[in-house]
């Protein structure tokens, strides 16, 4: 009995000793090659020094082409752990991941990236080429933009025509519906925009938070300006002739401002000039396209030759302003040598230019052949002119359709040179989200920019950001880095990370929101070799 008791006491004292004794968390002191090293020759082994003896349990190697291999592990407890490398290591970057057990049975894992001869660097990945950002809401966003452009042009433009060139009372119903369509499309796009920024689908339109987020975006402000412009147009439509003219001009200016406010020109330099050009472009587009249907309607009335002459005098400078501002805006995207037409933005531009070429041909035809004949009273010319004008209006719709696609295609200048092309993702979490840019979008050394945002998309201040990159293979420990705040309040960067291999990588971002609150965001990206 005494013996049992004695052993019991002894056992408990051992237990007490062991909990008081060597319980330190094992941690890596140094490794050879060190994390991030570039070595000339393939090392025979990776040596990892810990603060205390540990036992290596598993180790694996991710090679430059993404292949994962298990490494053989020797038993025994050592502070300096030797992980033998396979004899035929290829050039490029390698990730060695290890898992060790410290004295207290606690498992510690980690990884070391080193490069042999050169740092891996892949071609820019085609998969992640962000020339088009397709999300669940892309089709409705493009559709809303199309209805907005068409409704604006045919509504506000028609009002301008009747207020300035010739009153077209009969077409009022059509103008009201055009304005209404533009208004509804503008309104809905606020919610779509918010939901899209959250990575949600159509169902999220039920959520008020999406609408609030949408209003915070530049497009939300643009939408409010557009609604004000459309309202001014609606009032102008029913006002007397004296009030209609200033109201139509206000509507025109507000509509142009709304599109320039949130459009691509926002980021183009020099910013003020480019936004001014964009406004000019939109205003002339509205004047030109909006005049077409009222003009066709006026052709059936008396005194049409008079109206036509006035329109002719007004249309030529407007159309030239439209072309010139369009050329100037597009030219900004061709400054640096890039394959502009290979991007989705460029393809939409090409489609638009093709239609513009045809429309210009029609405009020249109308002006040179039909206008003078109609003014002289040629009835068959009038019929042809009317048909030609309606066709021109249809082409205007096609141009709006091409321009609407730009809603989801970043312009080439925002993409950077092909080698430096960035890869952007938004990671959503329950408490926060983050926009991440990985530049360049390929295997090799990359710079990672992280912008934490609150759920309502406002910038989120955090204390620290930890980034974990793990190849999508079992038992491989992450590459772990701390981000650095580069610009207040919420732009962080991680530099000098080498993504050693292509394939799927799990990204984890830990945001330290305050001293005691950490939130975690997860995503998976795919990098091609």
């Amino acid at each position: 009995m005494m013996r049992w008791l004695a052993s019991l006491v002894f056992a408990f004292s051992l237990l007490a000793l062991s909990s008081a004794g060597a319980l330190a968390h094992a941690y890596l002191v140094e490794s050879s090659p060190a994390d991030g090293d570039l070595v000339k020759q393939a090392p025979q082994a990776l040596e990892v020094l810990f603060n205390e003896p540990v036992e290596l349990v598993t180790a694996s190697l991710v090679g430059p082409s993404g292949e994962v291999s298990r490494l053989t592990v020797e038993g025994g407890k050592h502070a300096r752990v030797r992980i033998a490398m396979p004899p035929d290591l290829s050039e490029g970057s390698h990730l060695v991941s290890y898992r060790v057990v410290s004295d207290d049975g606690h498992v510690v894992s980690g990884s070391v990236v080193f490069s042999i001869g050169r740092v891996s660097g892949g071609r820019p990945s085609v998969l992640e080429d962000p020339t088009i950002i397709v999300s669940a809401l892309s089709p409705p966003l493009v559709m809303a933009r199309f209805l907005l452009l068409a409704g604006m042009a045919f509504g506000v433009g028609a009002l301008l025509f009747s207020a300035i060139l010739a009153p077209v009372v009969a077409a009022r119903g059509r103008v009201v519906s055009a304005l209404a369509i533009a208004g509804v499309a503008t309104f809905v796009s606020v919610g779509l925009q918010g939901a899209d920024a959250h990575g949600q689908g159509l169902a999220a339109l039920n959520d008020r938070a999406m609408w609030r987020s949408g209003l915070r975006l530049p497009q939300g402000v643009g939408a409010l300006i557009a609604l004000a412009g459309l309202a001014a147009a609606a009032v102008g439509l029913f006002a007397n002739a004296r009030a209609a003219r200033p109201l139509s001009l206000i509507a025109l200016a507000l509509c142009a401002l709304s599109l320039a406010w949130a459009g691509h020109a926002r980021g183009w330099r020099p910013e003020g000039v480019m936004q001014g050009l964009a406004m000019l472009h939109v205003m002339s587009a509205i004047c030109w396209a909006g005049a077409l249907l009222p003009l066709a309607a006026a052709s059936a009335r008396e005194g049409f030759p008079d109206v036509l002459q006035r329109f002719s005098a007004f249309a030529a400078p407007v159309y030239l302003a439209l072309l010139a501002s369009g050329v100037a805006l597009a030219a900004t995207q061709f400054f640096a040598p890039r394959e502009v037409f290979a991007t989705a933005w460029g393809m939409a531009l090409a489609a638009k230019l093709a239609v513009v070429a045809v429309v210009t041909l029609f405009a020249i035809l109308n002006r040179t052949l039909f206008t003078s004949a109609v003014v002289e009273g040629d009835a068959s010319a009038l019929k042809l002119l009317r048909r030609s004008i309606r066709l021109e209006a249809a082409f205007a719709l096609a141009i709006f359709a091409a321009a609407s696609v730009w809603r989801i295609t970043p312009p080439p200048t925002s993409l950077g040179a092909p080698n430096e092309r960035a890869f952007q993702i938004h990671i959503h979490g329950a408490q926060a989200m983050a926009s991440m840019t990985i530049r360049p979008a390929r295997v090799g050394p990359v710079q990672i920019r992280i912008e934490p945002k609150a759920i309502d998309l406002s910038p989120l201040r955090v204390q620290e950001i930890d980034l974990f990159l793990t190849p999508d293979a079992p038992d491989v420990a992450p590459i772990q880095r701390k981000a650095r705040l580069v610009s207040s309040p919420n732009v962080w960067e991680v530099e000098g990370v080498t993504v050693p291999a292509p394939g799927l990588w799990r990204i984890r971002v830990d945001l330290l929101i305050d001293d005691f609150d950490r939130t975690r965001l997860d995503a998976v990206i795919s990098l091609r070799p």
Partner: protein
Amino acid sequence: MDCRPLLLSPFLYAALAGAGTMASAHVGFTKRQVPLASTIDSILRVPHGCNGSPTLRLRMRLPKAVTGFRPQPKEGWTITLSGEGATREVAWSGRLSATQTGSFAVSIDIDASVKPGQIVYFPVVQECEKGVSRWIDVKGRPSADSPDDESHDESTSPAPSIRFLPRK
């Protein structure tokens, strides 16, 4: 005294086997599960410093479920309570060598709304001479992409927690 039986003693092996699991490398309470009571006593154990650096300060955020918190005085350590509402905080300031284990006894009043089965978290920031360790990760705060993500449970720095068992 004959030592043989002692070495063969099942108690010894049980204790040794248990040592591995009981001696966690995380900062945490010695009693992780306690029967629900209006006041509980426990000990916060700090097994080591921050990667070999001695601990100078421990800060604990008090959860809503705690209505009163009375730390036991500890020689060489000053204890301060600060903040109110959601930012109540206890801080122990002193010095603990990186290779020693520290024990911080506390008496905690539990809110009547706490139910058996509930887990209450006490996030702790361990400030060391060099570096900081944050024992603040909480279960049940999954990311949007993987709502059932188990990896939270494998956090390398979980917040100390107490799970309440049915009342005795």
